[in-house]
């Protein structure tokens, strides 16, 4: 992890920093008010009033949240560094307030061997601004056939395994994968999609019917989600269902996670919470994504499931693509959206401002809950927790433009949209890794 280290005065406790005057929101502890936070040795040392430190950052009028955690990102490394790298992906994450990210394994080569995992782990240490965790593949080549060497992958530094991008088509193969992952002590992130149903490129709804683009029914996700959840409960494996995009799938998650023996969590994405398949009527390849944007009923259903905790958290499925793969008809375009930099502003604007979701639940869904999933130790703004923080200006409005994005690609579905809320600072392990305000650190006696 690199990133600009704040210039600090020479002192016995040089990395002692007080962020003062911010409205601190830490859903895990119920903390919600103007406070000072003192950081020391990479951790939160103290939360309270009138704290003193060797350095001081005036955050008056800003909000301070635990750093956001994204368990689903494609940094396209190795293989498509023209679309994203660890340097640019982690910079985009930091610019979005994310302090921890899980990198998906559908790269070229696929992250399915210990040597690729250890190579990535080494590169992350050197190149990433934020904490980055390597997800290895559940099956070799993501082909849904042969298991990967999960125990050796774990020793090489893999954090979890996933079949993301394709899903596992055979229930029997998936079951073995879950059993083996359980033995290896690795959580499994599941992409639920039945290829016998997912034959189209957009949601099979009114918009698809009107524009004549081949649709995939919601059942393509729901059937695979049901299968995965049945197997998760039966095997007792630690399963995370990613990018839940339909009301039915969300309800299935709610049903199965309540069963005894279930170790199930699930996320949905900012775009499924804020956008609908109405956008495909523009016939722009940009709006192709998998799972596809769904009708308003699904958007609302998924939003309710997130508000009620059935869906545990938000993950962006940050999926950069070269312009040449997006400036195409829907049927030829690559599926996927950028996610890191717009996640919080889009959700704050569409859900919190409209009163559908509390700010506290949003921060829990972007930080506390996924933070608990990736880290076993305390996560949040409380004494002893890692100093991973996001400083946000909730009052600032901005328009999403390609030239403002830090990511190496620019396939954001929010281009041209006016969003409220801007990340102004991101701190990882006590270091400022994104500075959107020209932060001044004042030495204090």
């Amino acid at each position, binding site marked *: 992890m690199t990133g600009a280290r704040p210039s600090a005065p020479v002192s016995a406790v040089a990395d002692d920093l007080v962020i003062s005057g911010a409205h601190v929101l830490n859903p895990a502890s119920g903390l919600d008010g103007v406070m000072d936070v003192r950081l020391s040795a990479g951790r939160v040392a103290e939360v309270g009033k009138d704290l003193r430190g060797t350095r001081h950052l005036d955050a008056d009028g800003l909000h301070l949240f635990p750093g956001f955690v994204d368990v689903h990102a494609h940094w396209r490394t190795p293989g498509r560094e023209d679309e994203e790298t660890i340097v640019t992906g982690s910079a985009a994450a930091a610019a979005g307030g994310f302090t921890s990210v899980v990198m998906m394994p559908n790269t070229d080569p696929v992250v399915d061997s210990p040597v690729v995992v250890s190579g990535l782990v080494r590169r992350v240490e050197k190149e990433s601004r934020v904490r980055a965790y390597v997800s290895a593949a559940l099956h070799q080549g993501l082909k849904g*056939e*042969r*298991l990967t*060497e*999960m125990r050796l992958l774990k020793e090489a530094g893999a954090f979890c395994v996933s079949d993301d991008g394709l899903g596992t088509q055979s229930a029997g193969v998936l079951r*073995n994968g879950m059993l*083996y992952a359980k*033995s290896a002590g690795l959580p499994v992130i599941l992409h639920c999609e039945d290829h016998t149903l997912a034959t189209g490129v957009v949601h099979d709804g009114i918009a698809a019917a009107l524009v004549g683009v081949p649709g995939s029914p919601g059942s393509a996700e729901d059937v695979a989600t049901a299968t995965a959840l049945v197997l998760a409960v039966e095997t007792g494996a630690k399963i995370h269902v990613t990018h839940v995009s339909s009301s039915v799938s969300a309800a299935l998650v709610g049903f199965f996670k309540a069963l005894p023996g279930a170790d199930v969590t699930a996320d949905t994405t900012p775009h499924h919470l804020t956008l609908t398949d109405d956008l495909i009527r523009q016939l722009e390849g940009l709006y192709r994504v998998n799972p596809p944007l769904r009708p308003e009923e699904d958007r609302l259903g998924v939003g309710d499931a997130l508000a009620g905790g059935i869906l545990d958290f938000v993950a962006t499925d940050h999926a950069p693509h070269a312009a040449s793969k997006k400036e195409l008809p829907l049927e030829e375009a690559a599926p996927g959206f950028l996610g890191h930099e717009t996640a919080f502003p889009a959700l704050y604007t569409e859900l919190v401002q409209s009163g559908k979701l509390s700010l506290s639940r949003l921060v829990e869904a972007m930080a506390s809950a996924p933070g608990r999933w990736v880290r076993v130790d305390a996560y949040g703004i409380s004494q002893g927790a890692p100093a991973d923080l996001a400083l946000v200006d909730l009052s600032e409005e901005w328009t999403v433009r390609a030239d403002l994005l830090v990511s190496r690609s620019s396939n954001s579905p929010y281009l041209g949209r006016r969003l409220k809320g801007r990340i102004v600072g991101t701190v990882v392990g006590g270091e400022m890794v994104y500075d959107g305000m020209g932060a001044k650190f004042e030495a204090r006696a």
Partner: protein
Amino acid sequence: MQARDFLTLEGVSREELREVLEVAKVHAAGLAGGYDGLSLHGRTVCLAFFEASTRTAVSFELAARRAGADVISISEKGSAIEKGESLIDTVVTLDALGADAIVIRHPSAGAAQLAACHAEAAVVNAGDGCGQHPTQALLDLYALSKAVGGFDELAGRRAAIVGDVLHSRVARSVIPAFQAAGMELALVAPDTLLPSETGAWGLPILPSVDDALDWGADVLYALRLQNERMTSRSPLVPSVAEYTRYYGVERRHLKPGVLGMHPGPVNRGVEIAGDVVLSDSSLIPAQVASGVAVRSAVLALAVGAVRKEATA
């Protein structure tokens, strides 16, 4: 004398085990010892092997012949089974021809028990599907008893059963037999090679052979991993490299006092390292060598040729 079937070791008692091992010892020594009528002279033993076998078939045949029995062997190939004769009809035919004991090897669990229901002759299970392989576990105990200084020395010792428990008839006989002998057991396998109900036997499940040694294993009992478990379209184990790393018995595991066992046939370099198979810490040759005496004893007990002398 009534025929006595040897179908399963599920529920076997310590005394039953002791009896078989005592009789086997007498056979091995070629003495009448405390038993008389050990000879199978004039008895007919039929070996009905519905599945390929080398060591078990040969060892049963030797066991029967050395004890003086007439031996008939039928296998699937070249018999009426090939024409579609059912298991029951085959058994009834052998029975009607006057077999005293039918030794059966079959690819389906429960085949021996089904045969026993339709035969007057004693039925000895020589391995049925993933069910039971009683004589394997008995010869294992014979070899192990000898190595540790007697049957009573087994009590309290710890054995880790390593590998493909799910598909192993050997494990399903070894577990109750070793437990009845007073041993403590643990299983070492990934969840893909264990039954869904991993707690079926109430045994601890350990993640590697190294963990088994930490647990205090005196015996590392490696099970055969069939190649198709690794090479099929959807294998249960990712690779030989990963399997051997966690579940392979290596020379470094066999510290003084730790014994390696394997029912054969061995995949050298997979479940057990090649240099371990014939090492001093390996009981594998002793296991094979115990087969004849133990199976002679089982056949003798099965047909009622063993009478314990009244004098003690």
